């Protein structure tokens, strides 16, 4: 039986899709059978970040509505054969995503995979609550920035009230993934520190993803960052986060890009 994980945030543009792709690939790279599901109907992007945009034939709504079988809609990753994608529809009305249909698809996915990772749309509307509804674990993606932290606080409240687990009176496992972190700026006092964000949101830390050009490079190429530059700082941070999700204890380090003078000159080429 799979573990269902939702990657969520209140604010848009904080790195949910990038993190879904990277965590999904990282778990798959450790041999787990993983599916990443795009719940952002109308603005699908997970297929693009995963480099599968030309392979989409059927999507989540087709499966929810019974127009296609799950097996027809799943796209197996070409680089990692334990990684699959269930894409979102771009054109259809998002009201077609019914609660009953989603529940049925989630049940079917749970049987086939070890991990079902749902990429949530931003905000607190229906799409976001549908994406988190069946989750066992939530990864709250936050930037060290005031609006992102505030919206994350709101999302944490919703995770504690509007999910199946919450309704059964069970605790939802929640983790913080801090993205676009710049250790140098934080140290200088120009960016919220990890500890500040943790103190404010008070949920356990899953990982710190450094601000890095490797993330953009990976999405330009259509590859999860853990598959495209496995040795880069963000890839290593996502790999560690994935191991923590599996229950391993991995020491938390603040990863950073080479920042010294020579590092700046040569670090990029050497990496």
């Amino acid at each position, binding site marked *: 039986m799979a573990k269902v994980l939702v990657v969520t945030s209140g604010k848009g543009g904080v790195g949910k899709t990038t993190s879904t792709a990277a965590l999904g690939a990282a778990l798959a790279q450790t041999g787990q059978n993983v599916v990443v599901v795009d719940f952002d109907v109308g603005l699908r992007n997970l297929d693009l970040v995963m480099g599968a945009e030309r392979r989409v034939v059927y999507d989540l709504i087709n499966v929810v509505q019974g127009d296609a079988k799950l097996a027809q809609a799943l796209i197996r990753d070409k680089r990692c054969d334990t990684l699959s994608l269930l894409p979102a529809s771009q054109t259809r009305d998002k009201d077609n995503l019914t609660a009953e249909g989603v529940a049925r698809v989630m049940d079917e996915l749970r049987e086939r995979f070890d991990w079902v990772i749902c990429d949530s749309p931003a905000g607190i509307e229906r799409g976001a609550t549908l994406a988190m509804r069946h989750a066992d674990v939530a990864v709250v993606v936050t930037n060290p*920035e*005031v609006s992102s*932290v*505030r919206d994350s*606080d*709101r999302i944490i*409240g919703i995770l504690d*009230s509007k999910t199946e687990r919450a309704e059964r009176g069970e605790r939802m496992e929640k983790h913080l993934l801090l993205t676009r972190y710049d250790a140098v700026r*934080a140290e*200088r*006092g*120009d*960016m*919220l*520190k990890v500890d*500040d964000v943790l103190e*404010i949101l008070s949920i356990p830390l899953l990982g710190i993803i450094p601000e890095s050009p490797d993330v953009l490079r990976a999405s330009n190429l259509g590859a999860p960052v853990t598959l495209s530059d496995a040795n880069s700082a963000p890839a290593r941070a996502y790999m560690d986060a994935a191991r923590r999700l599996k229950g391993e204890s991995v020491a938390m380090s603040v990863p950073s890009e080479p920042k010294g003078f020579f590092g700046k000159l040569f670090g990029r080429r050497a990496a």
Partner: protein
Amino acid sequence: MNLFNLFTRRENTSAPAARERLQVLLAHERAAIGQSDLVSVLREEILAVIAKHVAIDREKVKVKMDKGEQISTLEVDIELPALVGMPAARAAAH
């Protein structure tokens, strides 16, 4: 960034301000959101009880909660229909 910035920066860093603003804001928002949930639950249940006996207009109800240091008060203000409606409602209840 120039050399001058290197020396002046430490005095007017912005992260502590961000941290303080967030702490104050979220303390308020959490209280407000938690409260509105409780208030709406109470509102629905109180209304359901009263509606069993009196025909009430759901729009003409005010529910307010005041949180004091020692005592918190819940104020429920329900406008009952004109007396003509009352006997009928009482009859219906029996």
